[in-house]
């Protein structure tokens, strides 16, 4: 299995954060020797954290420049043996499917890091200790670990390695939401909610999914045919995704005995799909998202919505579609149906929300529904639209959560009805929120629209006639989306100035440093989406060709 | 009627029985020793009887000698113990000297 470019770049990208973690530990270790004060340690760990994320971004730019969008094979491959006796290899590579996600991760983590550093701007936290001042070294270490986990998940080409990174990604999230999230509170319906509750719910929910995925992983491993490790030694089973994909396509899995009377590939498909759809989140498994967002600190919400939801979609793309093409053909209508339900259900529920972050969370459910619909359509427009929607949502939802964070840092409440007439007081903030809302509701000319229109276009042209009904059902949701965003806009920003908020002050440089680049990206992607399409289109259309052409 | 082996066996059996009875019922340590001596005598008697009436060889009598020697040695040591017992407990009544009970 030879690849055009063998290079260490990807390994560097994945493990630069770990170097950062090492540095922070070094600082902590040397603290007594150098008699550092707590403030000094905090500042140092923030600096290291920032440096690490900036480094990853720079490497990401290097990856972007060197990536050849025209080829469908893996690039920047780094392939060595990890555990010989179980045929597990350290095999990372990036191709059209994951390149967009790796770059998105690098940049969004940078934005999130800037947001979690209390410099460059006034921070009013007399009576509410701001999360970025609490236990900073721990926060930074977990943050960087999370980055490594996510980058690894996107680059892993070995199923076992993928699963390891999948879990590594999960753990820091639990602590980040639990410790730095909102303090526990009891809801009117008597249930204790808050940081810890949300963290547990998130962790257990995703873990349940990944357990099912683990079963599928093992089943596949033991039913995979003979393969070669990187040093050429013959093995009877393999985790290597490239081999597994070939086996999947050549129908090796069809010859395996059915389980509970269902064909083996179908069972595997469903198991993997369950694991990933919880993360997407798809309709019935989405209830962890609002809780996790409401109680997570702003940067963590940014990462959760910006990146982590995409790992689920990426998983479906890489494992369900690429590895089991025939079963995908069988399952496509089902996925599309759930996608549409997510879209419409998410949109309607948003209309009834009072908490700004919960509203954005449910809108994420709705927007990720688009990705599912686009992917299930199995047309070039559909799948390109779906991947672009992942990228655009990855830019827009961080912007939305940062905006929610800005108002929360000042007013310490997220209740939409509590505000009113902010436009007068915070003109710059209103402008940016307007742009973010317009982008999210899919105003043409901004990033959100491209994804939506391509998904609808693809959906309408799908080979399965009832996809048209899915699109016809999903299009009105776009109106509802416009409805709840404008209603929020109207309740918060327009109308008479609520004098309770007269003390608010406009954006500071930290917030501008994160929001303006994202706004620029949204506008740029809206008018000139070519950079993303050049990266992903060839591989995606090849994948769709295999799935549709294959049958 | 000839005095055969059974006759001697019955006699040694009775001796054995009395010795055993003494050992079992007497509370006085010395009486117990007496019982033991009776038992030993019964045994040696059998030896000699068999030697004379059954094998006709001297093997039995040699062992009888050994038996007597043993009985003597045993009696000596036993009595020394009894004396020590007496010295320690001022009494040789086995029912009182039960310190090793538990």
């Amino acid at each position, binding site marked *: 299995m030879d690849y055009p470019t063998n290079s260490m770049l990807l390994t560097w990208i994945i493990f630069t954060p770990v170097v950062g973690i090492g540095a922070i530990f070094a600082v902590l270790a040397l603290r007594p020797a150098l008699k550092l004060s707590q403030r000094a340690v905090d500042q140092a760990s923030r600096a290291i954290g920032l440096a690490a994320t900036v480094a990853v971004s720079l490497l990401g730019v290097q990856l972007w420049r060197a990536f050849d969008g025209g080829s469908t094979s893996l690039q920047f491959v780094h392939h060595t043996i990890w555990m010989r006796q179980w045929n597990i290899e350290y095999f990372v590579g990036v191709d059209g499917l994951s390149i967009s996600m790796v770059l998105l991760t690098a940049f969004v983590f940078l934005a999130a890091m800037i947001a979690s550093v209390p410099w460059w701007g006034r921070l009013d936290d007399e009576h509410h200790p701001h999360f970025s001042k609490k236990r900073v070294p721990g926060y930074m270490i977990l943050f960087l670990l999370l980055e490594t986990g996510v980058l690894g998940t996107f680059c892993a080409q070995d199923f076992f390695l993928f699963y390891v990174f999948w879990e590594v990604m999960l753990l820091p999230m639990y602590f980040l939401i639990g410790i730095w999230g909102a303090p526990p509170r009891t809801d009117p319906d008597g249930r204790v909610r808050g940081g810890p509750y949300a963290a547990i719910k998130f962790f257990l929910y995703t873990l349940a999914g990944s357990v099912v995925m683990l079963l599928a992983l093992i089943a596949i491993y033991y039913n995979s045919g003979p393969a070669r490790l990187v040093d050429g030694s013959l093995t009877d089973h393999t985790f290597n995704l490239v081999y597994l994909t070939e086996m999947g396509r050549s129908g090796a899995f069809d010859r395996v005995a059915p389980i509970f009377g269902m064909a083996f590939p179908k069972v595997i498909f469903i198991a993997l799909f369950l694991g990933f759809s919880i993360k997407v989140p798809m309709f019935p498994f989405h209830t962890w998202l609002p809780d996790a967002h409401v109680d997570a600190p702003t940067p963590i919400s940014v990462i959760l919505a910006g990146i982590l939801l995409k790992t689920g979609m990426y998983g479906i793309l890489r494992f369900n579609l690429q590895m089991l093409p025939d079963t995908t053909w069988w399952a496509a209508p089902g996925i599309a149906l759930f996608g549409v339900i997510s879209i419409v259900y998410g949109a309607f529920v948003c209309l009834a929300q009072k908490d700004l972050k919960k509203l954005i969370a449910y809108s994420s459910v709705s927007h990720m529904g688009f990705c599912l619909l686009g992917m299930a359509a199995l047309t070039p427009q559909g799948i390109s639209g779906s991947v672009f929607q992942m990228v655009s949502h990855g830019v827009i939802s961080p912007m939305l959560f940062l905006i929610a964070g800005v108002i929360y840092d000042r007013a310490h409440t997220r209740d939409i009805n509590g505000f009113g007439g902010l436009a007068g007081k915070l003109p710059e903030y209103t402008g940016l929120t307007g742009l973010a809302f317009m982008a999210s509701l899919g105003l043409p000319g901004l990033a959100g629209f491209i994804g939506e229109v391509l998904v609808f276009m693809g959906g309408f042209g799908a080979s399965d006639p009832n996809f048209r009904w899915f699109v016809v059902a999903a299009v009105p949701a776009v109106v509802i989306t416009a409805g709840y965003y404008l209603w929020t806009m109207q309740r918060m920003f327009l109308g008479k100035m609520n004098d309770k908020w007269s003390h608010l002050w406009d954006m500071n440089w930290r917030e501008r440093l994160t929001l303006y680049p994202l706004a620029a990206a949204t506008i740029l992607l809206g008018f000139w989406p070519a950079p993303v399409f050049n990266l992903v289109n060839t591989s995606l259309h090849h994948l769709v060709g295999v799935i549709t052409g294959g049958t | *009627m*000839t*005095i*055969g082996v059974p006759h001697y*066996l019955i*006699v040694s*059996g*009775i*001796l*054995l*029985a*009395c*010795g*055993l*009875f003494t050992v*079992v*019922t007497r*509370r*006085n340590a*010395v*009486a117990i*020793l*007496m019982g033991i*001596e*009776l038992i030993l*005598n019964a045994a*040696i*008697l059998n030896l*000699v*009887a*068999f*030697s*004379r009436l*059954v*094998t*006709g060889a*001297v*093997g039995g*009598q*040699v062992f009888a*000698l*050994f038996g*007597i020697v*043993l*009985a*003597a*040695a045993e*009696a*000596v*040591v036993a*009595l020394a113990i009894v*004396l020590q017992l*007496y*010295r*320690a407990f001022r*009494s*040789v*009544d086995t*029912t*009182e000297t039960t310190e090793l009970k538990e």
Partner: protein
Amino acid sequence: MTTSLAGAVVFYALAALAVAGAAWVAFARNIVHSAFALLATFFGVAGLYAFLSADLVAVIQLLVYVGGILILILFAVMLTSRISEVKVSNRSAGFGLGLLVLLGTIGVMAAVALRVPWGKAPPATPEPMAPGVGDALLGPYVLPFEVVSVLLLAALIGAVTLARGRKRIAASGTPGAAAPDPVPERKTKDEERKTPDGEVQP
């Protein structure tokens, strides 16, 4: 070989002597009496040896048992019971159970003796057995002979150390032997039951 009537009478007399002595030892109330009854038993047995023409054994029996062991027992009796109580009570315990054991043993022994077909030895002439035994002692049985001698030595040393008492042992490790630690004054059961005014409750 059929023994003459006189022989039979002698046998039965000796047997009766031995058995009566044994019975007396078993049932005597006074320990001194039982000691002397033991003497009778020994004599009876010695006679039987003689009757069996095992002359060496009979003589040694008399020497060792009567001369040695009986005397020792008497010594022990005298030493361990206080002169003040002439009548040395010889309580017995579990009399009934003892009888049961007695009868049981007699029954079993008799049954075995009578039922088992003992072999017949060729009629040998009643010549003195001593030289045969002597040869046997230093002939085939020289190893047990030596072992027995070692045993006697062990018994000798044992008796001496035991009799010497604790002083010798205690003094061996530490110079200036302390007085032998006094034997803890201990009331006998009777004393315990003596009421302060000397009455002995039952």
